[in-house]
C-alpha cells in the first residue's frame, strides 16, 4: 500500500509544532498502525532525521499508551479498539492519513504525538482506591457479590486510562474516565465505606486539572476502546450529588 501521512511534529512542550508530510510506499495491509509508524521511523533514521515520538507499550490493547488522533477520531476509524489494534487494512491504497496528539489543556504535548497524561494519575491518587489492611489474601467468596454487580464493576474496571474519552470529547472532559474509576469501586462492598469522599475528591481533582464539563454528547463512549457505558457517568453524578448533600465535609 502507498500511504500519505500527515503527522504532528513538535520538538518539546515549549516550541510550536506543525504538520509534516511523509510518503510511505511499502506498507502491508496486515501491519498494525504502530508497525506502520515503526517503518516510517526506520526510514527517518536511515535518512538521519529525528524519528516520530509516540507512546506505546503492550501493543495488544491493554496498556492504553498508544494515543493517536487519526483522521479526526481517537484511535482511528475503528470502534472498541486502540491504535495498536488498528490495522492498515482499515485504509485504502493511496489514502492520506492525518495523525495528531490528544488535544486537551490537561494533556500537554511532550513531544510529537506524546502527551502528558499524569493528570489522570493525580485524579486516581485523589480517591480512586480503597483503604484496606494488607495481609494474607482473604477467603474467596467471603463477601457475597451478585453476578450482576460483579459484571457492572468489571465493565467499569476495564478502563485502561488511555484518554481517548478526553481526546474525543468536544469539551475535553474526563467524565467517562472518572466515572469508570468511581464506579468500579462504588458498586462493590469494599468500595462503599469511602464512596462519599471518593466522589468529592476525584471530581475536585478532575476540575483542578482543567478538564471540561460533560455535555452528554456520548462521543467518549463511542470512542472508548473498552466501550465504557454512559451509565457510569450518571452514577458519578449521583455519587457526587449524594456526597455533596450528605457528607460531613463542609
Amino acid at each position, binding site marked *: 500500500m502507498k500511504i500519505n501521512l500527515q503527522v504532528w511534529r513538535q520538538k518539546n512542550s515549549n516550541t510550536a509544532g506543525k504538520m509534516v508530510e511523509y510518503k510511505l510506499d511499502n506498507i502491508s495491509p496486515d501491519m498494525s498502525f504502530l508497525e506502520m509508524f515503526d517503518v516510517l521511523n526506520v526510514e527517518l533514521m536511515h535518512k538521519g532525521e529525528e524519528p516520530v515520538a509516540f507512546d506505546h507499550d503492550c501493543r495488544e490493547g491493554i496498556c492504553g499508551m498508544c494515543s493517536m488522533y487519526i483522521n*479526526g477520531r481517537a484511535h482511528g476509524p475503528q470502534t472498541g479498539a486502540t491504535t495498536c489494534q488498528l490495522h492498515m487494512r482499515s485504509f485504502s491504497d493511496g489514502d492520506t492519513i492525518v495523525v495528531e496528539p490528544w488535544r*486537551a489543556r490537561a494533556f500537554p504535548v511532550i513531544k510529537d504525538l506524546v502527551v502528558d497524561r499524569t493528570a489522570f494519575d493525580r485524579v486516581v491518587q485523589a480517591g480512586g482506591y480503597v483503604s484496606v489492611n494488607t495481609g494474607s489474601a482473604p477467603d474467596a467468596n467471603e463477601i457475597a457479590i451478585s453476578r450482576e454487580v460483579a459484571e457492572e464493576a468489571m465493565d467499569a474496571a476495564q478502563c485502561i486510562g488511555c484518554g481517548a474519552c478526553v481526546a474525543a470529547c468536544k469539551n475535553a472532559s474526563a467524565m467517562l474516565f472518572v466515572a469508570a474509576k468511581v464506579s468500579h469501586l462504588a458498586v462493590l462492598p469494599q468500595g462503599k465505606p469511602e464512596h462519599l469522599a471518593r466522589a468529592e475528591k476525584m*471530581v475536585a481533582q478532575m476540575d483542578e486539572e482543567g478538564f471540561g*464539563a460533560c455535555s452528554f454528547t456520548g462521543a467518549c463512549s463511542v*470512542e472508548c476502546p473498552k466501550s465504557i457505558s454512559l451509565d457510569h457517568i450518571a452514577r458519578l453524578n449521583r455519587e457526587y*450529588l449524594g456526597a455533596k448533600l450528605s457528607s460531613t465535609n463542609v
Partner: protein
Amino acid sequence: MSWVTQTLSSSLGRKVIMSLTGLFLCSFLIVHVAGNLQLFKGDGGRAFNEYTYFMTHNPLIITVSYLLYTSIIVHASMALILTRHNQDSRPVKYAYAKPEANSPWSSRNMGVLGTVLLIFIVLHMRTFWFEMHFGSVPMAEYDGKEYKDLYTVVVAAFSQLWYVAVYVVCMIALGYHLVHGFKSGFQTLGIRHKKYTPLIEFLGTFVFAIVIPALFAVMPIYMYLKVNGII
C-alpha cells in the same frame, strides 16, 4: 468557600444548575403551549384575553413567573460560563476532527441553539410581555368587565410574514435544543435507569422536540393565514 458555593462552582454543580433551570423551563413550555391553544378558538380572542388576564393576575402564577425570569437568566449565564470553560479546555484545536462520527449534531451545538433561543425570548418578550405590562394595549369588554386586548397585539405581530418566519425558525432551534437537552437534564441529575430512561427519551424527542415546537410554530402560521384571508 462554603460547601454550597464549592459544589455550585464545580463542573458538576454548574451542570446541575443548567439541568434544573432547563427542566423548569421545559415544564413551563407545557403550560404556555396549552394556554396559547386558546388562539385557535374562533371567538375573536375572548378566551385568549381571559387567559392572559388570569396569567397576569393570579398570585401563584405571578410568583412562578419571577422564578421563570430568574431561570432564563441563570440558565443563559451558566451556559456562557460552561461553554467558555469547555472551549478553554482545548486551547489547541485538532487540524482534522470528525465529530459527526461519534455524536449527534444537536448535542454539540447547544450553545448556538441556546443563543438563537435567547434572541427569540428577547424578541418575543418585547412584542408581547413588554406590551402587556408596560405598553398601551387596547381594551376589550366582555360581560361588562375590562380586559387588555392582547389578542389584537398577537394578530398585528403575526400578520407580518418576516415575524412568522422568525418564529418558525426559532421553534426548529427549540426542537433541536430539547431533543438533546431534555434527556441530558436527567443524565446530569444522575437519573438513568433501564426502566425509565426510554420513557424520558421518548418524552424528550416526541413531546418536547416535536409536538410542542410544532404547536408553537403552527400558531403564527395559522394566524397569518387567517388575518390575511388565506383560510
